[in-house]
């Protein structure tokens, strides 16, 4: 199973006895249930029972990851990357049900004052106020440049991303809708993907100020041209540097990563944006570097999961084995109960025999042992 948390919660300090008890408890729970979703609860419980007066960390709710990314949503990626760059101790909850987020949308940050923030820029400002500032070393002019390039991304790349993932018919049906239908919990998976698509279409219409927006070749060309130009500009600005400003990443790096990584890693049937991005070596390296340096776990997981389905590419379902096992169990149970109910198999006769024979065995077994003792 995937562990629904990273970084921060592992660094919490616990009293000595819990160093022994907690791992034992976790070990038992993971063995019993086959998943380690209890880690969170146990850590929370320890915090409460041990009476440690520690400020609870802010909780960040994000979409689950896939394709080797820590999350599939651009906004979530921006926040995750910034938090990693700034070293902010967030308690991460990767979920696949937006209704479980405190704001009803993802990402969302629940601060320890129980405030809820959902815009990436608001979350970043909040983290900055908590002294987790990835832009601390920037000069005023570099800060101004960051602001300008973030605007460039929002104006030029966001519409193309919406188009590529939600409007382009083949991409939407084969990848986006499928991903959300598979990952959302049962009743939601039927209507939420469609509703999310309508919201995105509405957003694109308003962004472009074009009421009669229809998926089509012309719209696609226009949007992809803007996006390609934006990527070229970013590539020129980045040059041969590792990050946009010096040797350490800043908020601009987080935004660029959040917008480009999904293009680079997703496997869309219509992959024109990806082709263009792959032709810009420095931006491609920039994304893979950040993934390697700041999200090593997700990269490894993806390699595992992508190498598995390559052989049996059909329907990649999470927890496949367990689900197969459960359904086999249910089928078996149904068959047996049918057999019992219709009287194909009668249990009474068997029980009778079983009751008749054991007494003899029991007589012999234990009594001899007692006699020895």
């Amino acid at each position, binding site marked *: 199973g995937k562990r629904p948390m990273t970084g921060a919660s592992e660094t919490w300090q616990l009293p000595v006895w819990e160093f022994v008890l907690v791992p034992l408890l976790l070990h038992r729970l993971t063995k019993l249930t086959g998943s380690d979703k209890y880690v969170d609860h146990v850590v929370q419980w320890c915090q409460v029972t041990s009476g440690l007066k520690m400020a609870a960390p802010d909780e960040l709710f994000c979409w689950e990851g896939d394709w080797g990314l820590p999350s599939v949503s651009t906004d979530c990626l921006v926040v995750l990357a910034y938090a990693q760059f700034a070293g902010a101790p967030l308690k991460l909850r990767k979920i696949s049900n937006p209704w479980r987020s405190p704001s009803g949308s993802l990402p969302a940050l629940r601060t320890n004052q129980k405030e809820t923030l959902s*815009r990436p820029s608001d979350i970043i400002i909040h983290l900055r106020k908590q002294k987790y500032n990835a832009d601390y070393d920037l000069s*005023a*002019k570099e*800060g*101004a*440049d960051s*602001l*300008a*390039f973030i*605007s*460039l991304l*929002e*104006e*030029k790349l966001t519409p193309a991303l919406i188009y590529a993932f939600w409007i382009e018919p083949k991409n939407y049906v084969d990848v986006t809708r499928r991903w959300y239908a598979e990952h959302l919990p049962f009743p939601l998976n039927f209507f939420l993907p469609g509703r999310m698509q309508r919201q995105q279409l*509405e*957003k694109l219409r*308003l*962004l472009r*100020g074009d009421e009669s927006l229809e998926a089509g070749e*012309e719209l696609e*060309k*226009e949007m992809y*041209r803007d996006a390609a*130009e934006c990527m*070229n*500009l*970013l590539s*020129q*600005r980045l*040059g041969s540097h590792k990050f946009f400003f010096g040797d350490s990443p800043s908020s601009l790096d987080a935004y660029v990563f959040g917008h480009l990584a999904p293009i680079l890693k997703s496997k869309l049937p219509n992959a024109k944006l990806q082709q263009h991005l792959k032709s810009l070596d420095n931006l491609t390296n920039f994304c893979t570097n950040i993934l390697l340096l700041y999200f090593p776990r997700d990269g490894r997981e993806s390699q595992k999961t992508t190498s598995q389905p390559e052989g049996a590419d059909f329907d990649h379902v999470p927890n496949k084995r367990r689900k197969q096992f459960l359904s086999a169990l249910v089928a078996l149970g149904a068959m047996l109960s049918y057999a019992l109910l219709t009287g194909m198999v009668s249990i009474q006769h068997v029980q009778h025999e079983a009751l008749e024979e054991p007494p003899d065995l029991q007589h012999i077994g234990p009594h001899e042992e007692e006699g020895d003792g």
Partner: protein
Amino acid sequence: MSLAAEAFVSQIAAAEPWPENATLYQPLTEDQILLSDCASSLAVQAYLRMCGLPVQVVCRANAEYMSPSGKIPFIHVGNQVVSELGPIVQFTRAKGHSLSDGLDDVQRAEMKAYMELVNNMLLTAELYIQWCDDATAAEVCMLISRPRYSSPYSWPLSNVLAYQKQWEVRRKMNAIGWGGKTLEQVYEDVSQCCQALSQRLGTQPYFFNKQPTELDALVFGHLFTILTTRLTSTELAERVKSCSNLLSFCKRIEQTYFEDKSS
């Protein structure tokens, strides 16, 4: 502007020189035009003046409905109609007039980025203050935007159109996440944007040293309009005034490109 139209325009445009009778259309200056439209229009005028291309400004009450993209301003050159600064810059480049040819790749990337900053923050803030600000809805929106916007139309239509416009802008704000912002946060964004521009400008006469570019035209259009337009509150202008180099930048462009022509 659609791609096919654009390709067509750039082919045709290259062939013909800039005519004497080029016209720029905008809403009525005295009692109709709103802050955001005025700023966009002024930016285009400044750009054309920097290029040295003569244009005659014509005010029409239905300019918004004449424009091919529904946005203001648009220019009518020869037999072509082009709206908004971005496409107009491309159009003039096709005719051989460009301000940004002297820039290197990185500078051009930065110029584009700063232009998007102005569109993304200043223009959105102007729209927000005009149409969406709940606290002073009784003031700016009710006293200025709505009556001005609907001034050419008679009673039932004027209300319908103003509501329609307001509704559209509000939906846009919600879509880009500005719906939940307070007025104070919007002013804060304006300050942040002005400080960024001010930092970038530094002590240079123009954003990229000695020569003006389309970025200078765009920034001038917005800042000069904010500084010279009277709203119910002077807060917006105050935020701009806190950056002194931007003030002298506006004055410099006004003197260089607007005063000697009118005198």
